[in-house]
């Protein structure tokens, strides 16, 4: 770990001003950043602590949606009764992530920005285009059981580890940002995380010095919401594959469907092809399998992770069947 200086921001404007210094970085729960600093994967020279900013509110919006402050903890959001009743997929996703202790520390904003768990990213002796641009990708041809099957590139096959963000993707969440000039903007979560392409070190659409201040959820979509996470052990493990669905049916016909996958790509993966295959179809296994095949049409394994393709299909079908049953 390199030496660094630390300050606690008193308000959001002061925070964005403080982080404009070269080498400065925000810290919130620190559940990911501190580990990365110890290993010198992240080497900030100045930390701006934003965990105590007044950005913790979870409140209802006039349009029927909700706004979640970026500094609300994962635990608080998961336990919020309004979130649990109106956005159960989000609560389920949060509770499927990490451990109780980590969720108590981790913030919503930090969760969106957590970095991949690719072991080669964590190993500073290994080549990694994400950590060290143009150095290569040791995961290709290496141990890649946990890696991406969709949207990967020859530069990077890492996955995004968040559960929460997968649920937010099917909820069409927007991320609220504040920049050093005190200007605010909103960006759809689907546009926030990026695919690796040739620049896997650029993971989001955040501009230098921008801070996430909140996440805005539109009014809940019609239909039943479910999050299903498949993992090697019962808790405290990253998803091999996860699925978030929102599906509405009427007299046996699917009237609307939203599908996203976690653990399969460099970003939470919205499966529009699957949604198209579902919408207007009958709520039957045949339709679900057609949707699963459509979702995974472009999937490619890298050896150890080949099984994820079949696993993702099965997980989607079962989650859809479960949602239909509950309707």
């Amino acid at each position, binding site marked *: *770990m*390199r*030496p660094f200086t630390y300050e606690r921001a008193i308000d959001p404007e002061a925070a964005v001003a403080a982080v404009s210094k070269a080498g400065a970085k925000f810290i919130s729960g620190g559940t990911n950043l501190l580990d990365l600093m*110890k*290993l*010198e994967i992240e080497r900030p020279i100045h930390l701006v602590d934003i965990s105590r900013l007044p950005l913790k509110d979870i409140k209802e919006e006039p349009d029927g949606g909700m706004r979640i402050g970026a500094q609300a903890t994962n635990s608080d959001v998961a336990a919020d009764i309004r979130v649990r009743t109106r956005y159960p997929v989000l609560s389920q996703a949060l509770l499927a992530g990490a*451990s109780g202790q980590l969720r108590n520390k981790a913030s919503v904003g930090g969760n969106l920005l957590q970095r991949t*768990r690719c*072991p*080669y990213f*964590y*190993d500073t*002796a*290994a080549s990694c285009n994400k950590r060290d641009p143009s150095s290569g990708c*040791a995961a290709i*041809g*290496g*141990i890649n*059981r946990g890696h991406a099957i969709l949207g990967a590139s020859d530069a990077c096959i890492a996955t995004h580890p968040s559960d929460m963000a997968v649920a937010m993707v099917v909820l069409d969440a927007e991320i609220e940002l504040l920049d050093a000039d005190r200007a605010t903007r909103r960006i759809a979560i689907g546009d926030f995380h990026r695919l690796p392409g040739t620049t896997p070190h650029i993971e989001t659409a955040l501009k230098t010095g921008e801070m996430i201040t909140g996440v805005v959820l539109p009014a809940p979509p019609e239909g039943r919401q479910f999050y299903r996470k*498949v*993992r*090697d*052990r*019962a*808790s*405290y*493990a*990253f998803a*091999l594959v996860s699925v978030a669905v929102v599906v509405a049916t009427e007299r046996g016909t699917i009237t609307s469907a939203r599908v996203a996958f976690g653990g399969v790509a460099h970003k939470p993966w919205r499966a529009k092809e699957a949604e198209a295959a579902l919408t207007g179809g009958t709520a039957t*296994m*045949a339709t679900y*399998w057609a949707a699963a095949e459509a979702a995974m049409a472009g999937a490619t394994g890298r050896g150890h992770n080949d*099984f994820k393709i*079949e*696993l993702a299909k*099965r*997980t989607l*079908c*079962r989650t859809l069947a479960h949602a239909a049953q509950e309707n």
Partner: protein
Amino acid sequence: MATMTGQPINRIDGPLKVSGKATYAYEHWDVGEPLYGFIVGATIGKGRIVQIDTTGAERSPGVRMVMTYRNAPAQGPRDASIPSQYSRAYPMLSGPDIHHYGEPVALVVATTYEQARAAASLVEVEYAVLSGHFDFAKRLDKAYAPKAVNAGLATDSAVGNFDTAFKSADVKIDQVYTTPYQFSQPMEPHCCLAVPNGDDLTVYVSAQILAEAHTAIASTLKIDPLRIRLVTPYVGGGFGSKLGIHGETILAALAARALKEPVKIAMTRQQIFHLVSVRPATSQRVRLGAGRDGRLVALGHDVTMFTSPISEYAEQSATSARGLYAAPNRLTRHRLTALDLPRGEDVRAPGEAPGLHAFESAMDELAHALNMDPIELRILNEPKVHPEEGIPFSDRRLVECMREGARRFGWERRPAKPASVRDGRWLVGYGMAAAIRGQFQMTSKAKVRMGPDGIAVVQSDMTDIGTGTYTIVAQVAADALGVPLDRVRVELGRSDYPAGAGSGGSWGASNTCTSVHRACMALREKLRIGKIPAEGMEAEGEIAAMSEEPNYKNYSIFTYGAHFAEVGVDVDTAEIRLRRMLGVFAAGRILNAKTARSQLIGGMTWGVSSALLEDGTVDARTGAFVNRDLAEYLVPVHADIPEIDAILLDGFDGKANELGAKGLGELGNCGANAAVANAVFNATGVRVRDFPITLDKVLPALPREV
């Protein structure tokens, strides 16, 4: 008054531990402000250092010293002729050659830990990389026979004519099972505080066996053992990985002596994967030949595992098969193939854990092939005497363990046909396996002295590695002296005390307590005939090594058990989850029912872990363990271990020692993995032989549900 032994009393050191007053190696602040060391590891798997630049690190704030092979003091060489590898010298930074990934290439010592760690990244090393051998599967054909395997056991055994009998057997099982690299990862990392005092040295070491650590440190540093004092009142778990010392201890000692100040070093969790013990990966061929009635006619277990070329180590993985079942024709063999990986060392239940994983899975396969109940198959093949040595068992009770376990577990509800029982989206299956483990006796001494306050003080260099040693020693001493528990004080973990056997191989409890018992009985006798005041009276007790004890030659002295597991396998995703587990064990007399049960359910949890989760993965391009932290090297969390229980049969094995007690720490980890694996087969009809059984290995064989 012989009433304390066996009672499920709480740990007498419990309040100290939960209040943070129990001092572990890294926590002895009374020595003054220490310096901190941080180890720099090699980032290649094999090769040589051609250039090492320490100037950046040396100039870094707070740095007091950077030690590399160029300035490290001369040390004693590792002497492979010393039978116990844990007594051998453990030289560090002794040359430019790199033998495995992560091997220490430098030590940075600074005023604070953070300074040392920051400076460590500034040490620039240039390597000449040599191509190493890192792929176990590709080196199986290079295997050789070692002279002996762990614990001095024979490499091979043969009875009758295995080949002929197997060939003509009515029913045959011939399968290959593989087990991965596994690690001991105790909660307390490997750490050391070395404090110089002139030419003397006090070493606060996290070690299981002080006498061996003492010898190893003295011979490495090439100083008189009398000048070195070891202090280890508490150890935060060992699991075999602290049977010997490692780099942190030697490097702390070298730096402390060079700088003439206390130096402490703790390994990071990531470093432990490369710098401490690894359980060798194995490939095991099990061949079982039986008549149609289920009687075994031929039993063969061939194990190949990796070894470090510079430090040979062979787990005794095929030795369980030598004593478990009767069969007239038998063959067991161990072979090693060299890989450029960290050296193999004992990891909890060395030999039995991977060996029984394979062998007891094969027994389950045989039961399935015969359409027999797995318990009935085992009972049918229960031997009357040791099947290879012909000597009687001191105390076996394996059949009783299986019967009692079956009754308590509800074994009669086991699905007779695999993949036939569903609970919602879960396929449900039952599995069982037998447990067997050798009882070891090593030389062990203890002393007891009457203090001025009327308290009997028991002393031994025995360690308490979290097992409850303080407590059971107090219980045994109280009974032997005929005094209440609060009239006994137990002092452990100092090299000044009489040398006990240490904690390892499950021998610590029975060995230490027998020597304590003898010391107390001797003191009692002195008190009975003594004319002088009791205060200051003392006596010693001692036991000899098993090689000196006729009983250990004339009887097969082992511990036994039976494991039962129920698992659920998700019909869609193949996720495997334990639903409940029971073990029934026979290990002679139990010294403390609570700490014994804790040891056993801990061991059973290791079994669940090796069956379903643990898998040290090597990048065959570099020789690095890729998943080297506890987020990626998976062990069970609480949610993975639901209802689990261990039952101890009330017993007394007078052939083992006069207390009738045998070791049981590792018994819980013997065969538990096979019980879980067999339950997965019963649930799914899918037999995975490449352990651990992860969902990706089951999924392709599970039909899609449409």
